[in-house]
């Protein structure tokens, strides 16, 4: 005689609850308060955290650029120039350094940044000279852009 009814009642109903709960709680361990211990609170907090993480991927680029710009502005003001003037004149001299590199130079290589500020200042003076005076040839060196062939 074999009893089959009891074994028919036991069903395999999926992975054990502990592992499913740990999957969520492992992402909440560094949170503050009961959200790092209690599952129902943690589920909502973890979902918000993931949403913030996806949204902030674009925000990170914006914030980093803002940080670089404010650092370059502070460094150029130390040398008596403003940020838009510096950038515009560097572009006119065809110096294609981006804001990240400029801010790193301002921090770790202050003398190179000083020379860049002087370059921008010289180009600015040449621009003023060309606009105000009626000179046929630009007298300065920096406003002549050489194209390699």
């Amino acid at each position, binding site marked *: 005689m074999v009893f089959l009814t009891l074994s028919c009642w036991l069903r395999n109903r999926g992975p054990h609850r502990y592992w499913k709960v740990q999957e969520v709680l492992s*992402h*909440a*361990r*560094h949170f503050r308060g009961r959200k790092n211990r209690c599952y129902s609170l943690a589920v909502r907090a973890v979902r918000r*955290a*993931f949403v*913030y*993480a996806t949204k902030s991927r674009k925000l990170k680029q914006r914030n980093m650029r803002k940080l670089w710009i404010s650092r370059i502005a502070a*460094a150029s003001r*130390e*040398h008596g120039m403003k940020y838009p003037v510096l950038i515009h004149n560097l572009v006119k001299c065809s110096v294609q350094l981006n804001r990240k590199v400029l801010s790193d130079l*301002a*921090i*770790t*290589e*202050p*003398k*190179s940044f*000083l020379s860049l500020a002087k370059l921008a200042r010289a180009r600015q003076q040449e621009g003023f000279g060309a606009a105000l005076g009626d000179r046929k040839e630009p007298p300065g060196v920096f406003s002549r852009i050489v194209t390699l062939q």
Partner: protein
Amino acid sequence: MTSRGTPSRFLQSVLQNGVGRYVCQLKRISLVFSKKGPSSLGVREFIEEGVVDYAKNNPGTVVYVSPQPCRVPKLVAEYLNGNVKEEALTSKTSQQIAELITKLTNQSGLDIIRIRKPFHTDSPSIQGQWHPFTNRPRSIEPIGPQKPPAS
């Protein structure tokens, strides 16, 4: 998967490995397989052909070959910094196992997690890092060695 919730590290090499001599960071490789199971066929082929050549080419790595009754053939790689990496080799061909082993040999034992920056320098500043007095004019003359009195 938040960046603060998952572990991350900075780019580094183990004790500046390539600067002088290069030391292979793989300490020990153990091939666990079964003599008869069908999933270990690739492993057995690799042991017939490729293991001896691999062991001769990498004299700094110890190769252990252990036939055991097991369902899942495994490759256990141990590195010099103590990390252990296990890979399952079920139903892999001998070629795939060879590629996997070369990949593990070329790795250093550091964790494979998010690397924060793709660069690293020990000397980030050459002209001297900026401090609030770099661009200020000096208030005192530089002090040199004192001249002895003339009389």
